[in-house]
């Protein structure tokens, strides 16, 4: 997981002409959120894929215009992605049959909530599988800690300790992504 400063550094390397590992690292950081954003906004897997591709082509092209003093790489990526989503949505071939699921959202209303949900998903995905698992069992289902311990085949004490460190790790991962309570 990269911090905001690490991401700015990666993008600076892209700006210097390296579209290999630094851009791949950024891709792996954001592809899930961008794809989910595309599915949600455009309601179509093909368009969601195009959103991911176009965002990264443009990120590569405009890497030298990124100014870390003016914002994070995350906000740069998502500002660009929103604009691209609007362009894709306006393209007549995007709507052969009907309006997309979320025409409103493309315009802006509700998109912040959506982005926030994507950030939480990214933060969860960045945790170790053991941490993610214990958190998912805690909030997905109506389980008690003893049930979780039984489900995972772990001593209760381990589940308690692990839950604590999982929460701390999640809090950190969220903060790194600019999330605020």
């Amino acid at each position, binding site marked *: 997981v990269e911090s905001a400063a690490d991401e700015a550094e990666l993008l600076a390397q892209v700006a210097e002409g390296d579209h290999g590992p630094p851009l791949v690292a950024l891709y792996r950081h954001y592809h899930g959120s961008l794809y989910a954003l595309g599915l949600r906004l455009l309601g179509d897997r093909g368009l969601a894929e195009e959103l991911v*591709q176009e965002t990264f082509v443009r990120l590569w092209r405009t890497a030298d215009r990124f100014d870390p003093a003016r914002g994070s790489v995350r906000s740069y990526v998502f500002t660009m992605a929103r604009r691209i989503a609007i362009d894709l949505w306006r393209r007549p071939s995007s709507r052969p049959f009907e309006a997309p699921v979320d025409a409103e959202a493309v315009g802006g209303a509700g998109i912040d909530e959506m982005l926030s949900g994507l950030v939480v*998903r990214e933060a969860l995905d960045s945790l170790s599988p053991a941490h993610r698992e214990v958190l998912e069992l805690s909030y997905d289902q109506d389980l008690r800690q003893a049930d979780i311990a039984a489900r995972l085949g772990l001593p209760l004490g381990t589940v308690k300790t692990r*839950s604590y460190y999982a929460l701390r790790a999640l809090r950190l991962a969220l903060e790194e992504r600019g999330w605020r309570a």
Partner: protein
Amino acid sequence: VPEHLAPHPDLAGYVLGVLEPEEAEAFEAHLSGCPDCRREVAELAPLPAALREAAPPAAVPPDLEARTFARIEREARSSRRGARLRWAGLAAAAVIVLALVGFGVARLASNGGPAGERIVLAAADGGQAEAVVHVTAPGAVGRVIELRLRDLPQAPKGYHYELWFVGPGDAPGRPDRMSAGTFHPDPGGGGTARLLVAAPPPRFPGLDVTLEPTDGNPRREGPVVLRSAP
């Protein structure tokens, strides 16, 4: 002094709401006497709500990464090609500019140096009219002509004067000349004009002024009024 060095074992379960009721009660009792735990609970308390709003995991097609980077690689190759062509274009332009500068310097020398060349045009009919032409070559753009007139009669209505660079083989019906521009003298027969011409003087060693009908036809039709000495 913290009551416990390790995190309290029930702190996370309390925040996540997964304790048994009696465990939760006991932890709350502990909490009232433990500022460290209160601070931590406050920090972690927003997380369960965040977890509930988490977007479902997205199943990104596994080959999307390869396709995206193949596209970037393609565009990078074609923009490198574009950049090479742009550089080649700039280099060619630079060669042309250098050639023109060289040409300009050579012509300038043949025009008598930076001060330019002064040519007097006398009346073809032996009269008093005269024009003094000062030719300079300030750069690759061409020649700058400073024209100064004296005693040149007003052109009749529907006519204007035209200054020409004249080549050696110029003859009626077989023109070898290049227009340097058109003008009218002021009411006193004088006046000055500044004209810009692309003609290289060595190619057109002569200069003359003709009286031309203002009919839109660029060819020389009228009589020679003033001419340079042969």
